[in-house]
């Protein structure tokens, strides 16, 4: 039983062996952190529901390579995101920018939340005004 438990645990740990990005880390840990943050926010256009950090498509590895190059060239995060948006459009970013085109994405959740709350409040108020007639209500 114990052997089985150990085997299963080890098997679960093998996920770590599937690391996608096999390139060497930057020497500067701050740079590495920036790099990892950026690749987590860029969509792989070929495999649309993955970030380029998660994807092993060659387009993703090309984009990771370009992002490394731009980082070593001293470009800011903003400049790197601009580079990607100029070529692939807003869709390349997992966190869309607040612009005219994406405005609805940003305001829809707020509108829906407050709209829902308002509706709920109105319904509750309406029902509160009704007489309590639990016993007879059950039969109907």
């Amino acid at each position: 039983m114990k052997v089985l438990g150990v085997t299963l645990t080890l098997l679960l740990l093998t996920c770590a062996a599937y690391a996608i990005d096999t390139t060497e880390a930057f020497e500067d840990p701050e740079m590495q952190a920036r790099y990892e943050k950026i690749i987590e926010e860029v969509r792989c256009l070929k495999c649309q529901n993955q970030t380029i950090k998660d994807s092993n498509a060659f387009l993703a590895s090309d984009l990771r390579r370009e992002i490394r190059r731009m980082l070593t060239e001293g470009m800011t995060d903003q400049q790197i995101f601009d580079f990607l948006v100029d070529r692939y459009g807003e869709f390349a970013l997992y966190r869309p920018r607040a612009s005219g085109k994406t405005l609805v994405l940003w305001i829809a959740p707020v509108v829906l939340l407050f709209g829902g709350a308002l509706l709920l409040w109105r319904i509750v108020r309406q029902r509160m005004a009704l007489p309590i007639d639990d016993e007879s209500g059950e039969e109907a």
Partner: protein
Amino acid sequence: MSRFLLPLIAFAILIPIFVIGLGKDPSQLPSPLINKPAPQFELPSVTDPTKTVGSADFENQMAIVNVWATWCVGCRQEHGFLMRLSQSGTIPIYGLNWRDNLPEAQRFLQQLGNPFVDSAFDQDGRVGIDWGVYGAPETFLVGADGTVLFKQLGPLNQTLWEQNFVPLIEVARNKR
């Protein structure tokens, strides 16, 4: 009455949104390059790697830039059409051989015919990134002034050509 009317109205609004949404292919992304200057490049030629091919070759003329690769199934599918298009002499076709292997690319052209004036060999995909390429085949229409007029995703055929390219080419030619 309004108890039924309100959900009905909401339903009536939602259905067209869903129908439009479902009809769209999520893999067909709009290119931000449309009506912008085509990215410049200069790369070794596939047919003769000692020479270079680049955007300078189709300066001041309307041209097709077709992104292809030997590993790409859709490229084989559209190859027959590209051959016919190139034989018709309507417009020069330049190839961007994307993320490929040179001997294999050369063999591909020898075996299936070469519809391209020339193909640029983009081994590491850097030029592809500049053009916003995310999956071959992709076909760009570049105007004589060097602006990108249209981008076709996926294999090209006669129907798509007549639908998407011919009108734009005619408008551009009449303007001159």
